[in-house]
């Protein structure tokens, strides 16, 4: 798998979440994703960026255009140095929330992506990677 483009965006405010959505949309169009797939990855990115902001106390997202053979994909990595997640299974469960949200962010983002990976260390931070392939 090769990476043909990489950019890093900050997630430090509500306005940054809006900018992440706009950038992800542009990259999704660039790799030729259809409208429904664009909407899915942008929505997943919005959920994860908000998690980074609200639970991770801010962080960054790395957006990459990746290629495996003839397939192109968009891979997004959300990383924070926040408090981390003690029980990932619980955090992935729909309706579970510690922050007053709807508790759909992680589970929802997973359903909207072709690939989903999460690592978290309490006290160190959280990294969530998603990808959507054309």
């Amino acid at each position, binding site marked *: 798998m090769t990476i043909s483009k990489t950019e890093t965006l900050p997630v430090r405010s*509500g*306005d940054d*979440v*809006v900018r992440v*959505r*706009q950038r992800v*949309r542009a990259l999704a169009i660039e790799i030729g994703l259809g*409208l*429904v797939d*664009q*909407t*899915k990855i*942008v*929505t997943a990115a*919005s*959920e994860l960026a*908000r998690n980074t902001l609200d639970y991770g106390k801010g962080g960054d997202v790395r957006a990459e255009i990746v290629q495996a053979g003839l397939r192109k994909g968009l891979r997004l990595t959300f990383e924070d140095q926040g408090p981390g997640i003690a029980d990932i299974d619980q955090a992935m469960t*729909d309706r579970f929330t510690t922050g007053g*949200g*709807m508790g*759909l*962010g992680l*589970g*929802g983002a997973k*359903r*909207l992506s072709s690939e989903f990976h999460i690592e978290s260390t309490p006290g160190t931070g959280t990294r969530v990677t998603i990808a959507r392939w054309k």
Partner: protein
Amino acid sequence: MDRIPILKLGGALIVTIQVDMHDRLALALEEDLTAMIARTGARGVLIEISALEIVDSFIGRMLVSIAAVSRVLDAETVVVGMRPAVAITLVELGLELTGIKTALNVERGMSLIQARLLEDDEGHGSHRDDFED
């Protein structure tokens, strides 16, 4: 600060969301709508979202919250104009718009609210319009 304009048409309030919602704007809209329902005695709130490219759980929560507060003030919320790609994504995300009526477009949404206003007219002699300012 930016605000989303709210129009009054008969017993309904109409809001068109044309911009990418951020936190402050969402909170301001909720406050403005609540104040306006209380002031005008509106029976319906129509929220038109055809310009929204996504509805995530943040916006979903805002819509659910507006609908809940409106209901306490005896007004019904109808969300109209959702894009098909947004609807598909919303279902996959697992977001349920609890307490919100949806309609395909403004015309159908307004007829839901009109039906409610008609019931009032036929009803129990309580004329909320008397209290309008």
